[in-house]
């Protein structure tokens, strides 16, 4: 992005405040252009009227991210990678989460292939109101045979809508696969020093994005990128090689830093998404647990520092869960509020006999409690105190969660415990046990101390709710 203030973007807009973009003013629209929640094409007058055509084109150029955005796959499951403008996420945010592809090979038998793909496409983990999932399947040609590979790719397409990476250095193999898969817009992997001419031909012919592979040779990588761009192939992904161990891993890390810094600093010839292949950890370790662990570690380093897409092997939950959470951590928008509105919220259809559970307005805490309860089909009220988005333990220590806050939340919601419930009892989180006396005094209710983790609420409620005497 060559401009970074709404004022700069505003200069290109009609300035009529027509409101057709959904914003009241062109200035408001301009600020959404900068934070990328709107795009220039959302300004309908600019799209419709010829007199704005030139300005629209200029504006789009100025708003284009420094790192090219490349889309792989088609339809709802397609993924976009790249598109970044900054080196440190707190400055703007990182866009387009790292895409995680897990491998299958063309030497797997039908059953193995089916099971593995099923795991990849159905694995999910609830987190802050939604599910974390995996993105892609990388098909490796191990057989070396074009027909075998093509038939595997065909099978994979029949099994999943996830976008694919087609992996081989043999142009004949790639061509055979593209014959059956090109309309799914897979990512081709890869052009290297030997095959680049043929692979470039395939990229042109089938119009698919392509990875350039130059292990630890940034000059060669850049030369290939420049050559491909010159030929009009610009949906490129750069793979500088992922060496899994030793000093070469340090160099790999540095290569990622160098490519991204050069790209953000304006070297357009390398301003493309970067690919990592943590799967190489399996070439360095024999036992599955060590390999999985090291693969996760390498993936973590390169998720934090600039890997836009990666190919991995382990589908063990102990590897997948931290990988998914870390990438969410790094790609979460630091400007997005992570609180929920304070108040008294209903889960299910609570009655006067239902439990009343106190928690904080930190989105993570709220959604954790809410999902633990609702997935167990428990009807209840959740009292969400305004702790300024801080979790229970820290809010108790820091004074954001107090008896007064809980009292105020109930009052603001006009929720009279004596009137609306039969037990006049609230349940405090286990980590806020020390507030018990205070809450009893100030809220005038009975207080039960719940478990430290809301995951244990269902079992706890079975034993402790309803309370013994009214």
């Amino acid at each position: 992005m060559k401009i970074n203030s709404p004022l700069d973007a505003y200069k290109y807009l009609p300035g009529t405040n027509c409101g057709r973009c959904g914003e009241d003013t062109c200035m408001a629209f301009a600020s959404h252009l900068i934070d990328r929640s709107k795009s220039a094409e959302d300004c309908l007058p600019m799209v419709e009227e010829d007199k704005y055509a030139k300005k629209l084109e200029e504006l789009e150029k100025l708003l284009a991210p420094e790192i090219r955005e490349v889309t792989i796959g088609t339809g709802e499951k397609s993924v976009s990678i790249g598109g970044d403008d900054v080196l440190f996420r707190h400055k703007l945010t990182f866009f387009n989460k790292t895409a995680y592809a897990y491998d299958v090979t063309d030497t797997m038998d039908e059953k193995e292939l089916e099971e593995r793909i099923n795991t990849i496409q159905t694995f999910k983990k609830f987190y802050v109101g939604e599910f974390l999932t995996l993105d892609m399947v990388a098909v490796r040609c191990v057989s070396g045979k074009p027909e075998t590979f093509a038939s595997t790719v065909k099978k994979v397409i029949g099994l999943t809508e996830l976008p694919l990476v087609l992996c081989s250095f043999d142009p004949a193999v790639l061509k055979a696969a593209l014959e059956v898969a090109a309309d799914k817009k897979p990512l081709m992997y890869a052009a290297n020093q030997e095959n680049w001419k043929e692979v470039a031909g395939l990229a042109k012919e089938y119009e698919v994005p392509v990875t350039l592979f130059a292990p630890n040779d940034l000059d060669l990588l850049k030369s290939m990128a420049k050559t491909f761009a010159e030929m009009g192939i610009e949906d490129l992904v750069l793979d500088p090689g992922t060496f899994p161990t030793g000093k070469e891993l340090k160099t790999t890390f540095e290569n990622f830093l160098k490519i991204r810094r050069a790209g953000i600093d304006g070297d357009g010839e390398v301003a493309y998404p970067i690919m990592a292949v943590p799967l190489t950890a399996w070439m360095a370790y024999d036992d599955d647990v060590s390999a999985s662990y090291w693969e996760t570690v390498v993936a973590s380093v390169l998720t934090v520092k600039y890997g836009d897409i990666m190919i991995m092997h382990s589908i063990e939950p102990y590897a997948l869960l931290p990988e998914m959470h870390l990438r969410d951590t790094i790609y979460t928008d630091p400007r997005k509020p992570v609180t929920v509105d304070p108040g008294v919220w209903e889960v299910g259809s609570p009655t006067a006999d239902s439990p009343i559970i106190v928690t904080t307005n930190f989105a993570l805490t709220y959604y954790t409690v809410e999902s633990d309860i609702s997935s167990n089909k428990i009807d209840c009220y959740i009292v969400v105190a305004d702790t300024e988005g801080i979790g229970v333990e820290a809010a108790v220590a820091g004074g954001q969660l107090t008896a007064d806050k809980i009292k105020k939340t109930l009052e603001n919601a006009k929720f009279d415990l004596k009137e609306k419930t039969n037990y006049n009892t609230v349940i405090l989180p286990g980590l806020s046990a020390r507030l018990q006396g205070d809450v009893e005094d100030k809220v005038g209710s009975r207080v039960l101390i719940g478990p430290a983790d809301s995951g244990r609420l269902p079992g706890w409620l079975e034993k402790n709710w309803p309370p013994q005497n009214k």
Partner: protein
Amino acid sequence: MSDKLKLSDLNSILKDLDVESLEGVTIEGDIELDIQGGGGMNPAMAYALGHEAAQISLHVANIARMLGYPVDQLFAQCLGAGGETAALQAEPAIEELMQTKFDVARSSEWNTPIQEVTLGATSADGGSRGHTITLGGEKAMPFYFDAEMPNRNYVTMDVFDMPISMAKSVKSNYEDVMGDPAEWAKKVVNEYNADMVTIHLISTDPLINDTPAKEAAKVVEDVLQAVDVPIVIGGSGNPQKDPEVLEKAAEVAEGERALLASASLNLDYERVAKAATDYGHAVLSWTQLEINAQKELNRKLMKQCNVPRDSIVMDPTTAALGYGLDYAYSNMERIRLSALMGDDELNFPMSSGTTNAWGARESWMKESPLKEDSDWGPREYRGPIWEIVTGLSLALAGNDMFMMMHPTSVQVLKEITQTLYGNIEAKTPDITNWITAEV
């Protein structure tokens, strides 16, 4: 007009004419503009001539274009505008890679090294530690190519002065030493390769055992006897009791240059700071995920309590992976970047309570409480990796010292941070044909 045109001819032709366009001109033969050593030619005249000549050639070019000659290509070649030429050609048949060199600038913004802080004192410095540990000294973001990183990351392992509840997969490593902090300390150093030991005096909490400060200090002496690595001394986290506990502990550890954990804004940090300066220790400046609070506390420690710069380590708080690590990560990254750019209130090494990762349910819970979640797999493997990934991401944000618990986590975190530091020799596989690797 078959004769050569000379400058003087042109001059005389055009001199009296107001030429706007030439129509119906035919050109035969070569056009040769012969500009000879223009001795004495008036620059204004030369400019005018140049202008007119250019006008003429434009018209000539237009004529040539009408006749079907590829004029633009000719111009582009002459003027070196390759792109124009390429666009006009049908398809570029590129036979050779276009050679180019990759180059990237080193950062020019990072001009202030992080303060070095040394922990532990050997007999040469009046202590009894076998070695010292120096944190800080970085001149760039961790493991970056902009500058050498003088000191690697260090791990200090947690030891408690009483048995505590902890995740099963952590506990199983310590069951034999839980009742004996000195043996516990020996175990983490000798068996688990801890660089340092943190002794947490949690039994001093009035709500737990309310162990008197004097009694707790004896545990510190025991640990100092048991191991010769530098130590960190932690209280119970009770803001009323901690200053007194840390004072007593600092006294018995005099000369050992321990790290007192912690000074914070919600307790009497002056007492903790004074204990550190009186007995020659360093102090851990702990705040909660807030960069301005961290600046304020560091400023108070330096200006109000006269703690020397080489005796401050920061703990800006670690939130576990999936439980606020995004804040912890950005907070540390911002602190480190500001420090490298010269903010002298943030220019200190950082420590992380990486153990907090064990607070995440994913690290210890047997299975997901949510029916919709996929199977989480065995927690014995999930827990350690949760602690590793939490610590590792903070290592990349600028963290220097890790407080950790699980032996596997310690081993893997050390392996990866020291690899990035350039300290690990290992034979790496040939990855040129990774696609066909049997894994």
